[in-house]
């Protein structure tokens, strides 16, 4: 009877040991901070300077850009054109969403002699980018030393 009990005990211990060694599990965490895409809306869709005289006084047209995006994120902006004769002022800068949700830049014509030739429908492009987007960070397990 003792032998039987002993054998049963050994079998039970063996089964338990096998069950704990049959599987293994490990895990890692994954996270990401969702950022609201930045958008820009201009208060001006077109400017017509009409007739421009050489040497005439500057007549800067202000354009206001309004931004929406992730509060607290910093941004930079740039207004550009490929058209010779269009003069931009205050065309670059930086700000923070929530603090500086608008910026203003100016557009005028090059009023010097031969500063431009007649044109229509030339584009001024405003580009706004987040400047402090956190990159991916990968953490590997540390190995105890000693």
């Amino acid at each position, binding site marked *: 009877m003792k032998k039987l009990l002993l054998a049963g005990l050994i079998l039970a211990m063996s089964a338990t040991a096998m069950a704990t060694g*049959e*599987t293994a599990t490990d895990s890692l*965490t*994954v996270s*990401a901070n*969702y950022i609201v895409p930045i958008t820009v809306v201009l208060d001006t869709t077109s400017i017509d300077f009409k007739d421009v005289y050489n040497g005439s006084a500057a007549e800067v047209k202000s354009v206001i850009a309004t931004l929406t995006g992730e509060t607290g*994120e910093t941004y930079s902006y740039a207004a550009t054109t490929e058209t010779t004769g269009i003069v931009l002022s205050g065309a670059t800068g930086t700000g923070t969403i929530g603090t500086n949700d608008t910026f203003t830049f100016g557009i005028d014509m090059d009023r010097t002699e031969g500063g431009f030739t007649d044109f229509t429908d030339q584009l001024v492009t405003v580009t706004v980018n987040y400047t402090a*987007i956190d990159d*991916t960070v990968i953490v590997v397990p540390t190995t105890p030393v000693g």
Partner: protein
Amino acid sequence: MNKIIFIFILLSRLSFAVDGLFYIEGIGIKAISLSLGVSSIDFGDVLSDTDVDPVLVDFSVNAEVDYYYDVEISNDDSSGVLQVSRTSSGGYTDGKLTYTNIATGNDDPQKFYVDLDTGIMTGDLSATITVTVAYSVIP
């Protein structure tokens, strides 16, 4: 007199007892073990519909040589943003990855990739990926 009769009966019972024999066999199999090479991935700031680079997660499995084992890679993200694949270039799924391997008896290097489906992302992500390995068949 009654006591004498009782002892006699008890001894006679024991004298007719039959011993039972049985054999115990066992094969020593090492416990399967798993070690992940990455403990956390923080994709940082992510905008919707933007590309993020897949992150390689390497891990090793050590099991008894020539024994098959199953690998299951699962996650608890219900949004479908978290994607995993065994190759970096495609085959991503927001569900489980499962496959079977045969052990060499050493640390078998394996890997999978983690990516994000930013097109459906509308909020922060916080998830756990769990890797489970188990012997396929124990005789």
